């Protein structure tokens, strides 16, 4: 396609059910050519099923999937111009690495010389040239991962599908391969759909993230949108590590603006004025809302963001201090819940004592406690 504005992969009103059990409920997602779409959610949310429907490995109940302007619903997987990397790598155990990479071409009747050339090219790119004559059983996890990617790359498809490709690797290798996948994407500029349950993978790789839960698309947007403007409490809680603090707060109208009142342990409530509060919040005056603030927006006053327009401050009883090297995490109680603050590494703070914390209220978000939706 010529223009990058038109959507390259378009999923519209997609539904999928097994009998009376609905797995995917009215999914609408579009991604431009060269984009990196990450489907993220807890296990059982339907993300892998969604990927399988894109691949054509599972039929859809209704709706449509279009790749590059062409509807592929009902097409056989091999006719969709896609390649897929599986969680278990799914390397054919009886074939060599070279045989694995070339199997698709062999089936399509590509001549031998051409196959050899393609194998060599991909092997060079992934640095697996020395492994071509080995069987998958003789490879390490990282090498199998590369071969699986090689088998996908050699097809030069319109769309790459990755089904939790890094979940079987150990922590360090996972980070390395993550970088490698990102580098590969930048070089190949092929559109990718990537399934993971790891929100850090989602944040680092994606140009667009789709958060799913129970077969419902919770939010679809860029990583920054998802992170900073979560549409509901589920997205807010799921994305980010440590997770966003979500605590009960009471809204008090104070003439000019709005203030939140947070219950404190053995002390008066902490009242923070929020001059730039979203318009919808004034309707909640006198009522309870859920106040969301990420650990990094809750710091020691010296470590607070200097560009923040509204900083609130308050004394909190610090219960636990967890130095993590680059940062120090402090746990306190607010709004009846344990909450985490992310402080500078060398901050002087002791458990069991009261310390002053700064709230970056620019970054604070509010949710309706009943509907769990964001208050705009």
């Amino acid at each position, binding site marked *: 396609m010529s223009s990058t504005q038109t959507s390259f992969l378009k999923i519209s009103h997609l539904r999928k059910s097994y009998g009376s059990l609905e797995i995917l409920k009215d999914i609408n997602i579009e991604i431009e050519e060269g984009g990196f779409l990450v489907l993220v959610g807890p296990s059982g949310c339907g993300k892998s099923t969604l990927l399988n429907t894109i691949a054509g490995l599972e039929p859809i109940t209704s709706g449509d999937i279009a790749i590059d302007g062409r509807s592929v619903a009902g097409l056989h997987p091999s006719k969709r111009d896609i390649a897929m990397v599986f969680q278990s790598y799914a390397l054919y155990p009886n074939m060599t690495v070279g045989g694995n990479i070339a199997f698709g071409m062999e*089936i399509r009747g590509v001549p031998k010389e051409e196959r050899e050339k393609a194998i060599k090219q991909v092997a060079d790119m992934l640095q697996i040239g020395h492994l071509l004559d080995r069987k998958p059983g003789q490879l390490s996890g990282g090498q199998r991962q590369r071969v699986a990617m090689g088998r996908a790359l050699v097809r030069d498809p319109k769309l790459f599908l990755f089904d939790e490709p890094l979940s079987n690797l150990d922590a360090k290798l996972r980070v390395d391969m993550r970088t490698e996948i990102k580098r590969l994407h930048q070089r190949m500029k092929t559109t990718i759909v990537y399934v993971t349950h790891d929100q850090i993978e989602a944040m680092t790789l994606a140009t667009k993230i789709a958060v799913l839960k129970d077969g419902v698309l919770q939010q679809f947007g860029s990583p920054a949108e998802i992170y900073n403007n979560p549409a509901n409490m589920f997205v807010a809680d799921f994305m980010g590590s440590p997770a966003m603090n979500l605590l009960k707060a009471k809204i008090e109208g104070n003439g000019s603006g709005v203030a939140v009142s947070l219950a404190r342990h053995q002390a008066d409530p902490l009242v923070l004025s929020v001059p730039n509060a979203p318009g919808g919040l004034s309707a909640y005056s006198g009522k309870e809302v859920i106040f969301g603030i990420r650990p990094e927006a809750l710091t020691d006053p010296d470590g607070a963001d200097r560009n923040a327009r509204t900083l609130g401050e308050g004394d909190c009883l610090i219960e636990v201090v967890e130095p993590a090297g680059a940062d120090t995490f402090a746990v306190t109680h607010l709004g009846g819940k344990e909450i985490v603050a992310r402080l500078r590494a060398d901050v002087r703070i002791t458990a069991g004592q009261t310390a002053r914390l700064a709230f970056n209220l620019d970054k604070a978000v509010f949710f309706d406690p009943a509907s769990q939706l964001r208050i705009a």
Partner: protein
Amino acid sequence: MSAPSPDNVISHNRLTRALIYTALILFAVYYLLPLYVMLVNSLKPLEEIRQGGMLNLPQVWTIEPWLQAWSTAQIGVQPTGLRPFFINSILMVVPAVVISTIIGALNGYVLTKWQFRGSNVFFGLLLLSCFIPFQIVLIPMARILGMLGLAGSLWGLILVHVVYGIGFTTLYFRNYYENFPTELVRAAQIDGASFFQIFYRILLPSSGPIIVVSVIWQFTNIWNDFLFGASFSGANTTPMTVALNNLVSSSTGVKEYNVHFAGAILAALPTLIVYIVSGRYFVRGLMSGAVKG
């Protein structure tokens, strides 16, 4: 197999060991004794057997009984020996084993990787055939073979054995393929492989152990079958087991025990060879589903 580990269940106490080995040797002797009797007596002339001393080694060694059993012994009315019937059995067993194994493998493939509505019920019905006693189906089967025009023919016998074997072979292959990663099938689908290409390029190369299990099981069962052979074979299609019976139970003339012994060993030889050649795969294949690494 696995090396003996220090936490072996059986203690390494010498006395315990001795007891275990004594028991094992006793059982082995008890089990091997008939074979020994058959073997030594098949190598004696008839007069020597008549003198008694079944357990003695031959005073005069001879392979004459073997040659007789193979090519000249009186079976029924003809002095043909067991050879033509041995050939009948081979002609019956080989196609029956091959066909039932292939169908079982295909069934297992479909029942695990291409499940359809009611496939589990279908599998249950197939399993049922493993539990139906042979005698029940004799008369309906005879009717059907007659209707198909296969009564008394080798292909009729092959059909009976294939039909009876499918239940077991399907069970073996289904359970084996149940553990075969479905993602491999999906990867092959994306690579554009067809239903049969996936079967023989991806699944079959990994099916060695279970094929061995299926072949041994089918071979021994079909080779040793007497009931179907006696019921459905014609004069020219009698299998080895039935012929052996005719040889041994012939009521006229002298009972040539040495020839009978030789014939019985000849009849047992093929299954013995199959076990010896592929027996270790048999155990490995039966276990491979259970202890998948």
